[in-house]
């Protein structure tokens, strides 16, 4: 489990519009990598190319290479469905399946692999995943209640439990705390700390304190101007980015002198 990601010369398009240009990046296994940058700079777009969710949007495509543990994601014989089973994703807004119970939500991904699993294995997996997402103690009494009945922060941890139940190699998080209050945010951040023991985590965040708190490495994306493609400006250890970044633009963004 847990693989590193190598991205080389990645261009990302929406139809003819070049959204992100020329990304080269190495993401270490078993660590947290934060993507920061102003709105519209392409960090979420970039994140979505790491599990081929980008191409769900009609006309969206990429050029270049994304290697996960030595396997190219965009080879013609690679099934995007397989990629998404290997690379889990947590979204900006919690999105448990509204008609499913907490229990069924956790198992949703496992059921997809059309494996028959015994009741006892399923119970064990649900407990393990919810424990892994720090949610077990809060919901163990009401596993058969709908997932939508939980608070926002609990729902988001339920989504994390759902993502880790299929034991992915990598976990992508697209602003996972932006819809949460500070207490829930802190719960999710604690969880990220624990999860990096097992998973490679890439997190997009608008909150620079959050990037500083949770990540080992930080990548700063920016656009030259409106309508121009987003670019990776700098990637460095988080400590360095927030103290002595290499680039002037990074310094300006982090210290709030941006734009």
């Amino acid at each position: 489990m847990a693989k590193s990601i190598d991205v080389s010369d990645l261009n990302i398009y929406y139809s003819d519009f070049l959204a992100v240009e020329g990304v080269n990046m190495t993401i270490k296994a078993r660590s947290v990598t934060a993507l920061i940058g102003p709105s519209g700079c392409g960090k979420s777009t970039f994140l979505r190319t790491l599990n081929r969710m980008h191409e769900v949007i009609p006309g969206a495509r990429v050029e270049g290479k994304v290697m996960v543990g030595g396997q190219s994601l965009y080879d013609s014989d690679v099934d995007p469905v397989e990629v998404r089973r290997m690379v889990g994703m947590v979204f900006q807004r919690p999105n448990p399946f509204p008609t499913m119970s907490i229990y069924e939500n956790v198992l949703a991904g496992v059921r997809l692999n059309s494996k028959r699993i015994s009741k006892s294995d399923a119970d064990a997996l649900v407990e393990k995943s919810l424990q892994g997402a720090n949610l077990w103690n809060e919901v163990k009494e009401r596993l058969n209640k709908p997932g939508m009945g939980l608070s926002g922060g609990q729902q988001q941890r339920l989504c994390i439990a759902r993502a880790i139940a299929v034991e992915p190699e990598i976990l992508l998080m697209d602003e996972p705390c932006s819809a949460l209050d500070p207490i829930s945010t802190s719960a999710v951040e604690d969880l990220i700390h624990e999860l990096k023991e097992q998973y490679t985590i890439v997190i997009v965040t608008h909150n620079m304190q959050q990037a500083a708190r949770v990540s080992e490495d930080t990548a700063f994306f920016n656009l030259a101007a409106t309508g121009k493609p987003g670019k990776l400006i700098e990637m460095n250890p988080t400590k360095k980015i927030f103290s002595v970044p290499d680039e002037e633009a990074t310094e300006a963004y982090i210290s709030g002198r941006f734009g």
Partner: protein
Amino acid sequence: MSTTTTKSGSPKRRLGDLVFANLTRGAGLIILVALAGVAVFLTLEGAPAFSAGPNDLGGKSNLLAYVAPLVFGTLLAAVIALLIAVPLALGVALSISHYAPKRIASVIGYLVDLLAAVPSVVYGLWGIGFLGPKMVPIYEWLAEHLSWIPFFAGPASNTGRTIFTASIVLALMVLPIVTAITREIFAQTPRLNEEAALALGATRWEMIRMAVLPYGRSGIVSAAMLGLGRALGETMAVALVLSASGVVTFNLISSTNPSTIAANIALTFAESNGLARNALIASGLVLFVITFVVNFSARAIVARYEPGSKK
């Protein structure tokens, strides 16, 4: 449909507001009055039929024996029509909302809507003149090879004017409304739910099963119920297509078929009088009640699936 301005005693009411509030209230009341009027008429005019004898009831001894086969035929035709139409409509709706390229999808959607605009008498003519004869070889094959299934006991009709043909015509007629409602619901599936499924590694079909269909469940039920209401009440197409003899049988492909309430009224009302006419009106009351029950149970089912306020 209550208006928000019905609360009395507000300090100052503008004339325009007052007029409009009363106009809308009046419109709402007219519906109730019309519905009540129909119910009262059907009950008053139908009541004498309870004393009707075999002479007025086409040889049946009492009203119940007269209406029961018609109810049976009505339900049978409508249920078969739904069994054909709902899966087809779901397929069409999903292909429009999730599979077909945008341009083709809008053309298909437009064509399906067009189906709803075809007058039912045209469907009836198509049923007699085209579909019926084309179905005859199929009925003959079914009667020969599958006659051990009661539905296909035969002997096969040689005009094709069977209850099964009528049901196919009905299915086509309810298809547009079921498709229109379900495709609207499917298209509204939150992107977030769809992406949740896809990001877990769902194929397109699995995504539809996990996110789209559960979200649309109550919509599917209400669409099917609306379709059922339409199929129950459809008159002209059935009256034209069906060669009815008022029997009760599950044999779908023979030339002796149960009739439906609506078709029976259309075919016999003009030349009936006296108590026979009252009996027809009584059968109309039964149809009225059935459609009422269907609509109410549809609402009950929708409300049970969706405890929230979502329609």
